[in-house]
C-alpha cells in the first residue's frame, strides 16, 4: 500500500503541494470568483422578484382601474336611468296638464253653449208669451169684445203657462 509504504518520504511534499494548490483554488476561485458568481445570481433573483412585484402592482392597478370604471359605469347608468324617469314623469305631467286645459276649454264651450241654449229658450219662451198674450188679447176682443190691456193679458198668460 503506497499510501503507507511511501508515507515517510512523501508526506511533506503531499502536504506542501496540497496547501499550495488548494490555497490557489481558495484564493482565486473561492474568494475571487465565487462571490462574483453569487452576486450575479443575487442580482438576477432581485431583478426577477422586482419584475414580479412590478407585475403584481400593475395587475392591482388594472384591477383598481377596472373597479373605478365599473363604479363610474354604474353611476352613469343610474344617472341615465334617473334622467329617463324624470323625462317620463315630466312628459306625463305635461300631457296631463294639456288634457286638463283641453278639458277646461271643452267645459267652457259646453257651458257657453248651454247658456246660449238657455237664453234662446228664454227668449223663445218670452216670444211665445208675447205672441200668446197678443193672441189672448185678440181672442178676448173678438169673442167678448172686451178690451184687455197688454199687461193684464200678459199676466194672465203667465199665470196660465205657469199653471200648465
Amino acid at each position, binding site marked *: 500500500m503506497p*499510501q503507507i509504504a511511501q508515507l515517510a518520504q512523501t508526506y511533506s511534499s503531499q502536504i506542501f503541494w496540497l496547501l499550495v494548490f488548494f490555497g490557489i483554488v481558495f484564493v482565486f*476561485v473561492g474568494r475571487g470568483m465565487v462571490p462574483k458568481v453569487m452576486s450575479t*445570481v443575487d442580482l438576477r433573483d432581485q431583478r426577477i422578484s422586482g419584475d414580479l412585484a412590478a407585475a403584481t402592482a400593475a395587475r392591482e392597478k388594472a384591477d383598481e382601474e377596472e373597479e373605478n370604471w365599473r363604479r363610474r359605469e354604474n353611476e352613469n347608468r343610474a344617472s341615465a336611468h334617473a334622467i329617463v324617469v324624470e323625462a317620463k314623469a315630466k312628459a306625463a305631467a305635461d300631457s296631463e296638464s294639456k288634457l286638463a286645459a283641453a278639458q277646461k276649454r271643452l267645459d267652457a264651450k259646453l257651458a257657453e253653449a248651454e247658456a246660449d241654449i238657455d237664453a234662446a229658450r228664454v227668449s223663445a219662451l218670452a216670444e211665445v208669451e208675447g205672441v200668446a198674450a197678443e193672441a189672448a188679447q185678440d181672442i178676448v176682443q173678438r169673442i167678448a169684445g172686451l178690451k184687455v190691456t197688454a199687461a193684464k193679458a200678459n199676466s194672465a198668460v203667465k199665470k196660465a203657462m205657469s199653471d200648465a
Partner: protein
Amino acid sequence: MAAEVAKLDPMHQFTIAPLGGSADWTLAGFNIAFTNSALWMAFAALALIVFVAGGMKRELVPGRWQMAVEFFTGFIDNMLQANIGNNGRKYMPYVFSLFMFILFANMLGLLPLGVIGLHPFTFTSHFTVTGVLALITISIVLVVGFWKHGLHFFSLFVPSGTPVPMIPVIFVIEIFSFILRPFSLALRLFVAMMAGHVLLEVLSSFVIDGTNAGPLWAGVVGLPSYLLMIGICALEILVSGIQAYVFALLTVFYINDAENLH
C-alpha cells in the same frame, strides 16, 4: 511475465513518483518534490479555475456554462443556508473550494487516459491529502467555535437535557467523538476512492488475464468482468460526486456546531 504481473498490481496506481528531477527539492528541510500527485492537484486546480472562470460572464440570462457554475454555487449556498442559516454565507468560499476541488480530483482520477498512455492519479486516495483537508475543516470549526463562544463552546459536548449524573460520561464520549471527526472525515474519502480504483484495477486484471488465457476464459471471466467494469465505472462517477458531497456536508455540519452550538 514478471513485468506484466507488476503492471497489474492494483496498488501500483497509488505510487507517488517525483517528476522531472524534482526528487531532491526541499523547503526548510522538508522534501517538496513535485510528484505525479502534485501534478494532478495542479490539473484539478487549473480545471476548476477554468470551469468557474467560464461561468463569470455575469449575464442576466445565463448561458449553459454559466448555468453549470451557478448550479454548483447555488448547491453549496443552499447547503449552507439549510444547515447553518444566514450566517452560513461567509463559509461559502471555503466549502465551495473544498467541494469542487475534491469533486474535480475524483473525476480527473477517473479519466480513461490510460488508453493514450497517461496515468491519471487520484490524489484523494491518499490519506495525507484527505487528512490535511479534514484538519483544515476541524481547525475552522475549533477557531470559529472558540472565537464565537469562548469556553462556552465546551457546552457542545453536553447535549441539552442530559441528566446531571450522566454529564461526565457523556462529556467524555462527546469529546471522543469530536476528536474522531477529522479521522472519519479523512478516512471516508480516502477509503472510498482507493477501494473504487482497486476494484477497477482488479477487474481489469481479470479481463486481461482471462482474455490471455484463451477464448473460453475470455468468455467466462473476461467478458463478464468487462461488463461489470462498465457498471462500476458509472458507480465510481457517482461515488466521486457523493464523496465530495459528503465531505462538504459534514464540514458544513461541523461548522454549524461551532456557529450555532446545539
